[in-house]
């Protein structure tokens, strides 16, 4: 292990970390702006030009609020809850390939932190771990409403993880690889994007991603009209801020995952016909990737201000009786198509 390699990875990790946090910060502003736009009002516009300093004000406010740990709460787990939530949110972006290789002189810098052989499964593991943050926080608060919120959150994310995993299996049958780097590299150009091969799988995956991020219409864990405040009822100050923040980071990461699994990641149409040097294509690719991510984040917000919330039994019915059978049918269909293609159209 040479030093330059370590330094290179450290820089990459820091840059991605900062970008993640900044995007999560400004997602809060974007959400309120988009809400304003949809409801025909301005949204926050007092702090700085167009309210550009609003997230900083909110963050500062979170830090200076009084921190309350309820007397009946379990002290250690009360702090561990938001910690797990934010850590799992931040480490999940480690396997996403942000771009192709950069050539700096003789060095070839890969714009991916870790090319894990089983990258997609790593993502799933981290997502599954995120449930603990919510459950522990809800239980440690020693409050009935928090506990109900936590249990709703856990059962929802366990249910939708199954459908999500099944939709990924169909995708893996097409790509023949578990490594995210390779999956993205296969989708070069425009016609090779996995969305064309797996439209049904994408829809299932996207619905499950909404459910995993606890976004409307699946925001039952924190529906304030029924549950006081959900699993974070007893939280105040930055601990509440961390829960909120981890939700926005999850939204960013799942947008990145959707873009790289189904929409070609950093690939863009005619990328090989422009006659640009490799470095330029990499840079444009990174920009295109982020544009795709922003598109998905906008979609998340658009849905939030358009659809009402599900009832709990509807949520469970959709997860278990609609999405899982659909995902299994999708696997069978994909298998049949692959077989036909390999038998009759193989060249």
């Amino acid at each position, binding site marked *: 292990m040479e030093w330059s390699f370590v330094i290179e990875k450290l820089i990459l990790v820091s840059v991605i970390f900062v970008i993640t946090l900044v995007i999560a910060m400004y997602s809060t502003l974007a959400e309120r702006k988009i809400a304003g736009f949809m409801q025909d009002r301005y949204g926050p516009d007092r702090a700085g030009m167009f309210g550009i300093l609003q997230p900083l004000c909110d963050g500062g406010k979170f830090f200076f609020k009084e921190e309350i740990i309820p007397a009946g709460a379990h002290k250690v*787990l009360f702090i561990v809850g938001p910690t797990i939530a934010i850590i799992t949110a931040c480490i999940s972006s480690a396997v996403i390939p942000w771009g192709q290789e950069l050539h700096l002189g003789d060095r070839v810098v890969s714009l991916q932190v870790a090319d*894990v*052989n*089983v990258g997609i*499964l*790593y993502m*799933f*593991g981290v*997502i*599954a*771990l995120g*449930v*603990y943050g919510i*459950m*522990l926080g809800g*239980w440690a608060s020693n409050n009935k409403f928090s*506990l109900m919120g*936590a*249990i709703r959150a*856990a*059962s929802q994310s*366990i249910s939708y*993880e199954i459908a999500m995993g099944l939709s990924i299996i169909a995708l893996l049958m097409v790509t023949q690889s*578990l490594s995210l780097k390779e999956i993205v590299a296969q989708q070069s150009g425009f016609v090779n994007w996995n969305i064309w091969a797996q439209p049904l799988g994408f829809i299932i995956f996207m619905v499950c991603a909404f459910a995993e991020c606890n976004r409307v219409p699946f925001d039952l864990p924190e529906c304030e009209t029924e549950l006081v405040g959900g699993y974070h009822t007893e939280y105040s100050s930055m601990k509440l801020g961390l829960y909120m923040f981890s939700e926005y980071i999850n939204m960013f990461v799942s947008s990145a995952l959707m873009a790289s699994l189904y929409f070609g990641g950093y690939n863009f149409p005619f990328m090989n016909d422009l006659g640009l040097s490799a470095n330029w294509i990499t840079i444009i690719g990174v920009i295109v990737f982020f544009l795709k991510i922003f598109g998905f984040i906008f979609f998340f917000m658009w849905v939030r201000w358009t659809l009402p919330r599900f009832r709990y039994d509807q949520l469970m019915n959709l997860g278990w009786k609609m999405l899982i059978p659909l995902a299994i049918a999708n696997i069978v269909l994909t298998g049949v198509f692959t077989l036909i293609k390999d038998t009759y159209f193989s060249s």
Partner: protein
Amino acid sequence: MTVFYFVAFLSIFFALMTIFTKNPVHSVLYLVITFFTFTVHYILLNAQFLAVVNFIVYMGAIMVLFLFVLMLLNLNKDTEPMKSNLVKFMGVIAGCCLLVTFLGVYRVFEISNPLTVINPEIGLVKNLGKVLFNEFLLPFELSSLLLLTAMIGAILLAKKEPKQI
């Protein structure tokens, strides 16, 4: 090797903590950490796939369900069942049996040759899949049938009986 001993120590430590803590929720959490150390063991053996699957299935799914049930039970000191003397007596006898077994094992104990992995790539997904679907196809399919049966059984148990009028 030092990494292995460190992780092995952690596994045993947290496994013991699982037994010795009074609070059932703490117990489950220590069990979760124990499973995490197992994941690290798999990674040390270069079995990435097994590591991640162990992580997802045990830590991500099964232990969450455990936690789920325990959180809904109101387990306080007062509701804890009193252990009768008979149970304690049985515990002592079982412990003595374990001790005798350990002594017997210790007598025939010798240091075996260190296990060498013939193919270090065997734990990767591709090779594992090939082995499972060629050499071990029958046991693999049989165990999948077993799991399917268990699943259907669970659903049948959970399903409400139709009301008879």
